[in-house]
């Protein structure tokens, strides 16, 4: 059984490796980094559940799909018609936005900001340093095949306002698209930005982005993410954030899409007095599987981090949370907090969680908590006895469960985007 699984995954991996072989001469950027990544990817393949990091998340559903990539095709990534249909589903915005279709920047549909610089990865192809774990198979896959991405840099002291990064995906069964965008965001000392990332799409595709974020001293980033991919899509995202002294990363994510989703967040808190918050809510139904893996490494003294992950799971869906706070010897006076809560709304819903602490400094305050349960029957009874219909009462309680995450979103437009997505999710489900 497990052998069969490995073989199927191996075949999928070989498909990607063969594509790299074919495209190598035409891929942008340093060929050495690509070759190293390809060697790692060939050696490791796609991870299976024997891999401790993928213990709860099997990539097996990937094995049955034939991926064709956009593979440096000369034509448009998607037709205008598809483009319009997908854009119509995105929240309206007047401000600067970057639109990607199947991983490629669509300049015609994008609006560039005025106060800072944005380029495409295909024009400025640079891979991150060693802090990006190139030995991770999915990062290696990205490095091996990345064709495009956003390269954003906000200069020192500049308030960049709000930037929307829209990732659209479209593909068909039998000829599924796969794209591996490589995004890079640098905020100079004291710079500020609100980045609103929205991923949505139609059909079968694999979206495997890597985003590297570097925050300079005192820089401040609000990072809002809405992952609302197609119910048949695969979303394997990795985010890597490095914080210099007094930098602030304030992240809010709502996950309600994809057949199989994994969002990895890796943060290196490298400068004294930096603060990081990772707030995530996952709403899962049907056969979906969604995984939040957050690893926060405290490397400097006097920093704080907060991870709060909420799962609402119904149908046959599976939610996963793997969180880790790692505190190095030097990181005295660390304040680390991690909370993971899950609501199971159906008999077949499943949640797996692994909230981990790894601590090597003695003067720290680290705690984590996890709870799993159903809606409280007493609370339901309270609402029902006051004339609230069952369905609304349940919606109300779930909404209250998510309030901690949604109400904290500091960005008004962004909060509305996330709230609308929650409402839409709820509307579409006969719970």
């Amino acid at each position, binding site marked *: 059984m497990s052998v069969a699984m490995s073989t199927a995954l191996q075949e999928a991996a070989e498909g990607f490796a063969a594509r790299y072989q074919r495209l190598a001469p035409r891929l942008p950027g340093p060929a050495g980094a690509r070759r190293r990544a390809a060697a790692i990817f060939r050696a490791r393949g796609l991870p299976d559940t024997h891999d401790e990091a993928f213990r709860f998340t099997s990539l097996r559903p990937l094995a049955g799909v034939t991926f064709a990539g956009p593979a440096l095709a000369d034509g448009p990534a998607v037709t205008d018609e598809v483009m319009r249909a997908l854009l119509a589903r995105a929240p309206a915005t007047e401000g600067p936005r970057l639109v990607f279709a199947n991983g490629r920047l669509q300049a015609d549909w994008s609006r560039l900001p005025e106060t800072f610089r944005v380029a495409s990865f295909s024009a400025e192809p640079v891979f991150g340093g060693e802090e990006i774990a190139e030995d991770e198979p999915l990062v290696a896959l990205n490095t091996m095949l990345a064709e495009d991405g956003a390269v954003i840099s906000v200069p020192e002291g500049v308030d960049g306002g709000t930037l929307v990064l829209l990732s659209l995906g479209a593909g068909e069964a039998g000829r599924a698209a796969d794209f591996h965008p490589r995004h890079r965001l640098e905020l100079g000392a004291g710079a500020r930005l609100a980045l609103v990332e929205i991923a949505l799409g139609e059909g079968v595709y694999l979206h495997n982005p890597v985003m590297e974020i570097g925050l300079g001293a005192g820089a401040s980033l609000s990072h809002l993410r809405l992952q609302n991919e197609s119910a048949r899509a695969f979303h394997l995202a990795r985010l890597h954030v490095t914080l210099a002294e007094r930098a602030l990363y304030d992240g809010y994510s709502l996950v309600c899409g994809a057949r199989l989703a994994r969002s990895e967040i890796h943060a290196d808190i490298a400068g004294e007095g930096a603060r990081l918050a990772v707030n995530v809510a996952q709403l899962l139904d049907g056969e979906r599987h969604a995984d939040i893996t957050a690893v926060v490494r405290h490397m400097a003294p006097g920093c704080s981090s907060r991870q709060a992950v909420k799962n609402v799971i119904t149908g046959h869906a599976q939610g996963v949370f793997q969180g880790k706070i790692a505190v190095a010897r030097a990181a005295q006076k660390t304040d680390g907090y991690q909370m993971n809560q899950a609501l199971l709304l159906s008999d077949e819903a499943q949640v*797996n969680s692994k909230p981990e602490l790894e601590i090597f400094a003695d003067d720290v305050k680290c705690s984590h908590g996890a709870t799993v349960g159903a809606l409280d029957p007493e609370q339901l009874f309270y609402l029902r006895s006051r004339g609230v219909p069952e369905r609304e009462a349940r919606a109300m309680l779930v909404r209250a469960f998510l309030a901690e995450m949604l109400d904290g979103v500091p960005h008004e437009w962004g909060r509305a985007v996330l709230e609308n997505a929650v409402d839409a999710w709820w509307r579409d489900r006969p719970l």
Partner: protein
Amino acid sequence: MPAVAETIETVSAVTEGGYKWGFETDIETELAPKGLSDETIRLISAHKEEPEWLLAWRLKAFAAWQNMTEPHWARVHHPPIDYQDIHYYAAPKKKAPKSLAEVDPELLRTYEKLGIPLSERAALAGVEGGQVAVDAVFDSVSVATTFRETLAKAGVIFCPISEAVREHPELVRRYLGSVVPAGDNFFAALNSAVFTDGSFVFIPKGVRCPMELSTYFRINARSTGQFERTLIIAEDGAYVSYLEGCTAPMRDENQLHAAVVELVALDEAEIKYSTVQNWYPGDAEGRGGIYNFVTKRGACRGRRSKISWTQVETGSAITWKYPSCILQGEGSHGAFYSVAVTNNHQQADTGTKMIHIGANTSSTIVSKGISAGRSNNTYRGLVRIMPKAANARNFTQCDSLLIGDKCGAHTVPYIESRNPTARVEHEATTSKIADDQLFYCRSRGLSEEDSVNLIVNGFCREVFKELPMEFAVEAQKLLAVSLEGSVG
């Protein structure tokens, strides 16, 4: 802080002062040749005059073991273990004695040094009805068993497992390996192949065991890995409290220990299993010490049965131990209370597994880890709620205390829930001894050491209160010795 200098002195006094129980008894032992093969296993089995089925069972386990690889997922590091460089059988030369009078006086003196009340009259002073029956294990052969008669009257069987194999083969055959199968994991398979002795306890239906049962383990002969096998069965409505305590003499060489403990609780039965583990942890530089790879598992098979594991782990260079409960019977309850202390170069990776299978099952986990010196202390636990475990309930609390800036404290919990009516709660904290707590105690005239002791004891109180009284006293002393002065 002037206390720092004082502390450093005290620490070195304690650690360099050496391991209090590190003496060695000079008794001639009979050793099997080093190495592990079918022949070794046949030899062990023949020495113990075992029936054919048990030999077959051992050989099967050995075959399974040969196809297994040593697990490396735990946060412990050690040089590779050469399984062919170990004596798998060591026995005091004389035949097992029939009464205390026949026991080798040297051996009795050893136990005296350890303070084991081997004599039947040595019921603990001041404890009403506080009789403790001891099945002392010296290396691999149980040497003497006390209180046999009192227990026999109640219908309780408490004897070395090798004796149980002869006297109660039907019970042993029925339950041995039923909780921890022979091929369960690398170390359990090894144990199944070569276990030499251990305790067997059987509490018949409706019987409340009239006294607390106790086994003291000692590792004595050089290079003798110990492979204890303990099996405890509590029939319907039975109750037993079992104590396990360990000390081992000082050694330079690492010694392997891979025990297996199986508990079976039938309808409304209750088993309390308490351990104080104080094996030689190695010296201040991390040389020597026991490698302790233990598989402990209890099966709550009956309705409303209860199993609780309470452990105080202060010894061993490496501790790899996850006492678990399989909560199968409806309304059954599992509990795990643990204090793990590591100092110097000790490494402990310990925790529990609570597998909720039946409806209305509940479990409680309270783990207190204290790391000092250059040690690493990991809590690793699993709470799994299976689809049929309606209304299951778990509460987990893991707290870690760090003393000094060279040590590490880690928490690795796994929570898997597949039933919406189940409720699982987990909390964990990591901190150092708070300055305001210390200040509070100091301002009331307590010395720095006493303050730390008081605070650490308070930190562990939830676990200590689960221990039988005599053990709680020993545990507090052990903790004080292990940590005295390591706070500045």
